[in-house]
């Protein structure tokens, strides 16, 4: 039965069943399934979607749909993990968001989902995130990586503002900063003092792993 339920969770992601996501996850928990195995089923499914996207067999809309399923299914699973006092193995903690003044979320959501799929603990601050909110979240969570997305040429300088804020707070040496978004390039990332730049979501994940020595 356990395998059936886990397969059902995975299928919910692969079939983009956004409306059923939360109830399927709650049902798995109510039947006593190990929430870590539930989280792993979601991870496996997203990884499959991510690989399909990388190969060109699946498309942006597929990744967006699957991400939404995972977003809805994860909270009850995480709640159970916390309740049981369990800890998930994690390559590292990432705080991610789209910078202040910018409400674009698709790219950021893709990166967040793929980071989760690849074993990172992800704290997603959403969009239009103020500089001090990034810094507070990074401090409180003791994040290993701060990842920022900006989709507008008029908001990219917010990434620089956040990095300067991290320095002022004295926590810049404690974490790595990755930036991304359509108007960003390597030169800009270097200029503002970021540690990494990903031109695609998958590249961002590879860079995150590389920065933490996680392969």
């Amino acid at each position, binding site marked *: 039965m356990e395998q059936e339920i886990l397969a059902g969770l995975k299928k919910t992601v692969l*079939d983009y069943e956004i409306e059923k996501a939360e109830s399927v996850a709650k049902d798995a928990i109510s039947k006593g399934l190990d929430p870590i195995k539930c989280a792993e089923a979601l991870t496996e499914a997203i990884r499959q979607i991510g690989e399909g996207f990388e190969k060109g067999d699946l498309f942006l809309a597929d990744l967006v749909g699957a991400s939404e399923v995972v977003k809805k299914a994860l909270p009850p699973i995480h709640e159970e993990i916390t309740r049981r006092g369990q800890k998930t193995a994690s390559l590292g903690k990432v705080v991610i968001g789209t910078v202040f003044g910018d409400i674009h979320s698709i790219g950021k959501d893709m990166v967040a989902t793929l980071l989760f799929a690849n074993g990172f603990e992800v704290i997603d601050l959403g969009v239009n995130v103020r500089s001090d909110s990034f810094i507070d979240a990074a401090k409180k969570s003791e994040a290993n990586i701060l990842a920022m997305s900006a989709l507008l040429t008029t908001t990219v300088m917010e990434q620089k503002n956040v990095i300067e804020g991290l320095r002022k707070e004295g926590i810049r040496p404690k974490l790595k900063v990755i930036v991304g978004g359509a108007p960003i390039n390597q030169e800009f990332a270097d200029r503002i003092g970021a540690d990494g730049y990903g031109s695609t979501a998958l590249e961002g994940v590879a860079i995150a792993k590389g920065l933490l020595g996680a392969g």
Partner: protein
Amino acid sequence: MMPRERVMTVLNHREADRVPVIMCGNHAGISKGAYEKLCTYLGLTDSSALIVDRMQQIVEPDERVLEKFGIDFRFIYSKPPRNWKPTEYSDDSYRDEWGIRWRRPPNGYWYDMVDHPLEQANTEDLENYSWPDPTDAGRFEGLEREAKRLYEKRDYALATALAGSIYEQSWYLRSLTKFTFDLYRNRVFAERLMDKLLQIHMAFYERFLDSVGKYVQVVFVGDDLAEQKGPSMNPEIYRTLVKPRHEKLYKFIKSKTQAKLCYHSCGSVIPFIKDLIEIGVDILTPIQVSAAKMDTQKLKEEFGDRLSFLGAVDTQGVLPFGTTDEVKDEVRKRIRDLAPNGGYILGAVHNIQPEVPPENICTMFEAAMKYGQYPVKVA
């Protein structure tokens, strides 16, 4: 050769006197920010530009600018409806006639969607939704007279602004996430929504083309199907669910006008091109050359006998950040690749954005005139 004859010669896959050029309309035009800088550079201090696309902040350039660059097109725009006005908010946002709210961030170049009014809707809600009225008389007021005047008194190729979006408008209303789910798992809803949009667009085009159809040479339509890396939607889903509706709309448009149909999709659109040709598309735009596999030489080789291309001068790298020599090289390359045997109209990939230096805009069109003379002699 006069512009209209030039454009039609080239769109019929024959060589004219030179490659036609475009910098107008709402998808091959120029943004307010770029235009203001250009006017300053050209010393046109008395130019005031009319915004023809609020969301993208696209303007209709002054005749003096269009003449200076030898622009071969002039656009005809439907007017605002009489019985509806946008709802304005104090945070530089507004609600459009589809019910979607758009907000511009501080110092932003354009407006972003901030909500999706049909995100929680069910199929029954679609019937009761407050849809725009496509036949509001205000939209067509004076259009026939204006189109006739432009057709008879001026020699430009006349085009209509992009309209008729089915896939994109669906997810604008529903959200991309929800509409993706609909396409895979809730097809009844997806099809009802797209059919409703099809019905609205056909009603609009019926009145619109009754007024201007006999005068225009190009009708712009479109739906973004791709992004930088490749398709943004599954091509099989496109073929099953969206293409039949595109086909119906484009057949209808072509029944009302002799104009060529120009289809806009950003991104790496290769997987969709054959389908678009099948359903009556004559011209593809913007030819996003910075997207994967959008090699203009290969596009011409594979599709150039059946499809014309509009745009292609790189707007992500060369135009905003290149030197004037790099702009010249870019123009030469696109002319060399796309112009032989006609079938190419030169312009920026999509609308010119505020970062593009006015020197580069001038260089683009000067180079187009210099290197775009037929027969093309660019090595």
